[in-house]
């Protein structure tokens, strides 16, 4: 790995702002010119994706674009820096936003959703915040965008404005706001013990000399409580299934990609860039985190088995898979981290495929229960085909990208000698298969006379879901294609673990 060298560039800023700038346009256009309004969204998404991808070559060369805006507190600047990990997250978020935008158009029109302007505007805001999280160069900037994301998601969760949705919204807030406060607490405490600045640093910027171990442990707890809610670590997960009351594209992007991934991204940042493996081992909190993650991924898979509502089952599956990533970050081995970063990307493509499929089914048939979906595969072959790809991938079948990340995770546990976690990983993989395969199986191999009049959903929806499924497949075969996922993950791991020696 070359020595990182940072340079000033406005490109991260533009990548950040482009969706924010789209919001006034979206709002001003309003309901009167739907096509124009959607054009803004698509344009912003394309621009954002292009901008983010354009930074990939730099990062692969070890050059880090950076921009400092102004001082947000006397000692900390509002600054953006596109390091490897941030870029990974940004690539996932922006690319999938583009696809989701296309899909959304089909979905909201197909399902006749109301207040579409607010919907698209909030969506753009969420993406703004997500990219902000990805590019944040220090804890304060991170915190600001993290909170912004929490708030911007709220209108999407309650979008349907039904009592259920409102209740879900309340639940969401009652988890996310305390979490934000915990994060604030953690950051404030960090600032008070480490006044020199809060810039993220591969390998961690805190050291054991900054404060007593007890305090460091407390701060770590607050950090994990703060980001862990979004990452849906087990006792804090229950908002996620509830938030499935939101429209499917929201669930797809936000609750499979942006919001929850912001949570696990936060975990990675905290473990790798604030504390660093060395200090974590020193204060010994990593085992606790790993155990939480391990329990979560097992229990969530068990819970997923019991869900009949498709989106809820997907939600629990998400909970489980997020913990894979957390586990990878927690066990503090190079391969674990590689697996973690890879799973951050790969899980996104697979899970978004599944959500897209669920949405397509809902729009076409208004069915949400798995038991009602018997035989649907024959009516919607592309959709269910994509679903099959996604679920196979999540179960870790070789040939699809999920296998690749899981393999690395498993290697990581082995590397650290954590055989119990390896066992849990395997068990969870089996459970994954157990709750996904029946869906696929009954969709394709059982008949249902009721299903005769349905066909595929509109092209707006089918194309994106096919694309994401294809992506999963391709990445499974050639993980280093296009996004250089493998290289990036290795770079992250090397940077973080390198510091620890």
């Amino acid at each position, binding site marked *: 790995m070359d020595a990182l060298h940072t340079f000033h560039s406005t490109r991260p800023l533009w990548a950040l702002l482009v969706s924010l700038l789209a919001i006034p346009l979206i709002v001003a256009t309003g309901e009167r010119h739907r096509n124009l309004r959607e054009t803004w969204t698509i344009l912003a998404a394309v621009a954002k994706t292009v901008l983010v991808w354009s930074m990939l070559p730099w990062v692969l060369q070890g050059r880090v674009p950076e921009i400092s805006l102004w001082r947000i507190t006397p000692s900390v600047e509002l600054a953006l820096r596109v390091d490897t990990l941030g870029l990974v997250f940004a690539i996932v978020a922006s690319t999938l936003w583009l696809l989701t935008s296309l899909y959304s158009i089909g979905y909201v029109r197909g399902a006749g959703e109301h207040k579409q302007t607010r919907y698209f505007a909030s969506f753009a805001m969420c993406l703004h915040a997500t990219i902000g999280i990805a590019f944040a160069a220090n804890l304060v900037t991170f915190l600001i965008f993290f909170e912004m994301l929490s708030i911007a998601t709220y209108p999407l969760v309650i979008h349907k404005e039904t009592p259920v949705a409102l209740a879900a919204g309340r639940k969401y807030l009652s988890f996310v706001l305390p979490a934000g*406060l915990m994060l604030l607490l953690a950051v404030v405490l960090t600032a008070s013990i480490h006044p020199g600045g809060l810039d993220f640093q591969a390998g961690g910027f805190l050291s054991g000399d900054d404060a007593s171990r007890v305090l460091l442990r407390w701060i770590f707890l607050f950090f994990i409580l703060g980001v862990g809610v979004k990452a849906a670590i087990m006792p804090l997960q229950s908002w996620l299934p509830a938030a499935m009351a939101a429209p499917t594209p929201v669930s797809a992007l936000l609750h499979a990609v942006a919001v929850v991934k912001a949570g696990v991204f936060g975990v990675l940042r905290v473990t790798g860039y604030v504390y660093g493996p060395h200090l974590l081992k020193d204060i010994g909190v990593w085992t606790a985190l790993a155990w939480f993650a391990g329990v979560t991924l097992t229990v969530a898979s068990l819970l997923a088995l019991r869900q009949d509502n498709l989106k809820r089952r997907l939600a629990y599956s998400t909970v489980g898979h997020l913990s894979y990533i957390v586990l990878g970050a927690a066990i503090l081995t190079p391969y674990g981290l590689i697996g973690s970063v890879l799973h951050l990307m790969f899980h996104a493509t697979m899970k978004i495929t599944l959500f897209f499929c669920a949405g397509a089914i809902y729009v076409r048939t208004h069915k949400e229960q798995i038991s009602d979906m018997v035989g649907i595969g024959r009516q919607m072959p592309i959709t269910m085909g994509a679903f099959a790809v996604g679920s196979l991938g999540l179960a870790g079948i070789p040939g699809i990208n999920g296998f690749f990340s899981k393999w690395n995770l498993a290697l990581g546990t082995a590397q650290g000698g954590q055989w119990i976690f390896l066992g849990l990983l395997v068990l969870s993989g089996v459970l994954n298969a157990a709750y996904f395969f029946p869906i696929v199986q009954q969709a394709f191999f059982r008949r249902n006379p009721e299903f005769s009049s349905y066909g595929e959903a509109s092209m707006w929806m089918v194309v994106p879901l096919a694309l994401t499924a294809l992506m999963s497949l391709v990445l499974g075969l050639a993980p280093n294609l296009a996004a250089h996922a493998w290289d990036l993950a290795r770079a992250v791991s090397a940077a973080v673990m390198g510091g620890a020696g």
Partner: protein
Amino acid sequence: MSVKWTSRLWAGAGTALATLVSAVGVAAAAGHEMAQAHGDLSAIHGAATQSPDAFQIPAMVLAPLLIGVVLVPALGRLRRSLAYQVTVVVFVAYLAVALKALTTVLAHGTLHYKMAGWMPPVGIEWTLDALSAFVVLVLAVVAVMVAIYSGVAVRRQNPEREVPFFSMMVVMMLGLTGMVMTGDLFNLYVFFEVSSLSAYALMAVGDRKAPVSSFRYLLQGTIGASSYLMGVGYLYVLTGSLNMADVASLLPHLLGNPALTVALVLMVAGLGLKMALFPMHLWLPDAYTYASSTSTAIIAPVMTKVSAYVLIRMIYFVFDSNWVLSDLHLGFVVTWLAMAGVIWGSVMAIAQRDVKRMLAYSSIAQVGYIGVGIGTGNPWALVGAILHIMNHATMKSSLFMVTGIVEMQTGTRRLQNWNGLGRKMPWTFLAFTLAALAMVGVPPTNGFFSKWYLALGLAGAKQWVLLVLLVLSSLLTAGYFFRLLERIYARTGEDVGSGSARVGEAGDGGVREDGGANADGVKLAGASGSGIAGARDPGLALLLPPLLLGVGTLVLGLVNAWFVTEVIAKALPAALRIPGLGG
């Protein structure tokens, strides 16, 4: 006809207050006259050191207001609408001078102004340092905004009181500015009363119950002010001086004296009462709720804040903060009382069904934050407290103004009638939402940063419990604001009854509100008659001030570091300077 008497009452009271203002000068003079008789003039009357250019600034800050006190009632008598116009002009001039004052102070350092040219220990001194210039600027901004807003609001709600209302407003700002700028303990008391008296009068206008709450406030406020005066008396007995700087320089020799403790406690108690520190907040909810929306919009953001400012002055500039906070354990008392206020105010706010009352209780909570910052004695906490003076002023005035707008447009301020208003009045509620988010402390609004510095201070002072409470208290704030925001945006006005039946009103603790009864046959005097169904955004004059302040919460949040490094860091007392920050 009663219209006539109230307006005259107002004007009468206004003049009374103005008299007090004049008294300021004479009270000082009274002392000098005697000295003059002794012929030792030269000893007292030194040559005022006149740095050219800047030295008149402190007087210039008060000048527009003093002129306004005369002009507003006088011209208002000619034509009623002139009162409004003159007020706005006066306040804009005030704002301009305040800006100039701040820049001057930042460039040249503290300005001392010897009124009537007498040297400080005897004469009255006006001090304009970074802290007072900062607070004056906050006052000026709020004054301008509320004045613009009040033009239409007062005309619609109680047109016959236009002239007295604006006279009072100017007098109140005069009093508050005087409190902020004066360097003399007794002078401060006089301005204290000037602002309070006009506030009593302003608060008496409003609901049927307004005079009762105003009277209660008057009694309690008088106890507070008298307690402060008593404290000043003790200090005077001990030091023989009333000049703050002078007293401060004399006090170190007296630290063991129990009378000094008594003086301090009396002053803190008096000021605490005026700033609604926890057990002494009883006057606030009623007073804010029943006063007219314009009165509340001008009083709520500034009144308690200026008292808090004075508390800062006393503890950190007159007394030795270390002695006060640690040796006397007053810091402990103040912080915990303030924190109790935060919790209590927030909890009570959640229980309210009247939006204005909810905001009133949240004011108690927010003042509590300032109190926590003052009592902690950590530089960062103090930064947070000072910053929160500005931040809370912007948020609260915006919120109260929006409440007033809704009251005018729909005739209601009951929580449940706000359902779905967000769509009907998008711009109004944009302001409200921004300010509400700032109250909750969502970054990057300014509310977040006051909390940030407070938390930093508490962490620095190792007050872990307080730190956790501080952070958790924003949850309570979030509780009542998001409940309201949910109503505003996510529910429709039509399902008032059915909605509560269906959801069981989870947000309102399952209590079914007597909603049907309140479809409010009653409308406000100023209501445009369209009711809830036809509510829409008001005109620009009403809309712009809250909107600007709402957006201001965002902007102030983003540029808070500038304020902290350039202004507040310079405003900190010498003992608490943060190394590497400011001057």
